[in-house]
Each structure stands twice: as C-alpha cells, then as structure tokens.
C-alpha cells in the first residue's frame, strides 16, 4: 500500500512527501536542541534564568506543545500522501479539519494566549503578561 509501484502517486506528490519529511526531520532536530537546552539550563541555571524560571519554562512548554501539533499534522499529511489519491485520508474530509485546520488553529491561538512578547533578550523577561 506504500509508494512502490503505486500508480496513483504523482511526481508532485513525491515532492510533497520529500518536503513533509524535511519538515519533520527539522522539527525533530529542533525539539532535540530545545529539550537539551531546557535540561541544561534547568540543572545549571544562569543568574538571569533564575530570576524568571517560571516564565522561561512556560514559554518552553508552549514551544513543545505547538511543535507537537505541527508534528502530528505533518505526520498525518505524510500518511495521506503515502496512501495517494483515493486513499482513506484523502477521501475523508474530516481528516483535513481535525488534523490540519483544528490543530493549526490551536497552534496560532496558543501564541495569542501565551505571547512571547514577554521574552526580551538583553532585558530578561518582562513580568507583564499579555491581557
């Protein structure tokens, strides 16, 4: 059922798969960099990070959360294009609205709620929360 000699997968769809895999790989590395940074800063806080521990962690968790949403979305898209035209995902509209529209909406709305304007390089983080 995968690519192979599937006649329904066009060159364009193969390119889309390459693009999605590239995105997933970059995201994987990004999350790794973020988690390592998080762990190291947690065990050896800097004088700056100590003054705003709750804040920087809040923004890191927000990053993990939104990254996971994009990751889930991209994985579902990969499966969709692997199945090709006429596949289960492509022939069911609800997948688009659950795994793409809704997840991406939650992603952008999350940043309305937890807005990174609190993070000000050079000045630490402001304690003023977005209302």
């Amino acid at each position, binding site marked *: 059922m995968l690519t192979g000699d599937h006649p329904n997968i066009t060159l364009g769809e193969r390119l889309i798969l390459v693009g999605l895999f590239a995105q997933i790989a970059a995201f994987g590395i990004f999350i790794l960099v973020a988690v390592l940074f998080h762990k190291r*800063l947690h065990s050896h806080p800097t004088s700056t990070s100590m003054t705003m521990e709750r804040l920087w962690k809040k923004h890191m968790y927000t990053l993990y959360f939104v990254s996971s949403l994009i990751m889930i979305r991209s994985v579902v898209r990969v499966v969709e294009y692997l199945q090709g035209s*006429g596949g289960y995902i492509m022939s069911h509209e609800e997948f688009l609205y659950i795994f793409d529209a809704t997840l*991406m909406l939650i*992603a952008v709305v999350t940043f309305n709620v937890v807005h990174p304007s609190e993070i000000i*390089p050079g000045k630490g983080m402001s304690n003023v929360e977005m209302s």
Partner: protein
Amino acid sequence: MANDSASHKYYLYDPSQAAAAIFTILFLLDSLFHIFQLIRTRTWYFVALIIGALLECIGYAARFQNARQNPDYTLGPFIVQTILILVAPSLIAATIYMILGRIILATDGERYSFIKKKWLTKIFVVSDVISFLILATGAFAHMLALESLAERN
C-alpha cells in the same frame, strides 16, 4: 461530460461549505488579533506566523468557493486551497524557531544550546524555507498532473 470527470478528480467527497466558512473566519480573526498584538508589543518575528495564518484563511476561503460550486469545481480555488493549506504551517514553524532563539538570549543561556543562537535561527529558518519551496513546487506539479489526467479522461 468532460467537465464531470474533471471535477471528480478534485474532491472525493462533497466538501463542506460550513466547515470551510468557519475556518476562514477563525483564521481571519486570529490573524487580526495577532496583528494587533504584534503592533502593541513590536514582536516583528511574528510576521511569519501571521502570514501563515492569513494563508490558512485564504486557503479555506478558496475551499469555501469550491464547496459552493459543487459539483462544477473550478481549478483556480482548488489549486489555491491545496497549496496554501499545505504550506502555511511552515510559516508558523519559522516563528517557533525564532522564539527559541529569543528564549536562549533572554535567559543568558547560549552556552547550553549546542547550536549557537546566531546559527540556530538561520539553520532552522533556511531548512524551513527549503521544505516550504519543495512543498509548494510539489503541490503545484501535482495540480498540473491532476488537471492533465482530468483532461485525458
């Protein structure tokens, strides 16, 4: 009818008008709210995410147009909705990469990041742009293939 077989290649179901309309409006409202927050807080790196949200909005608007045309879909909105909804998350991702860079600087924790902040943002944003371009090219090529397939039938 040639047109019939063409339109059946686009959607394998009857696309929902209501769902497309709802997400068009929600992404529009969210973009406007983000623009308001950007101006208020001068967080310019949110431009990428806002463009992403606007692409989602335009994508679902195009999908709504297609849904209204059911079953005589036109190609234009179909291409727009396919490509924009596919590539928009890359722009949201670009802003996420920039946020990590700013957290690293703000906590004075650059020595704990195994990629220097200067490179971190560049590497991820560049890889993001590359995957964005591959996705857009692929989606466009796929549309052309669908169209020629539809014409042959």
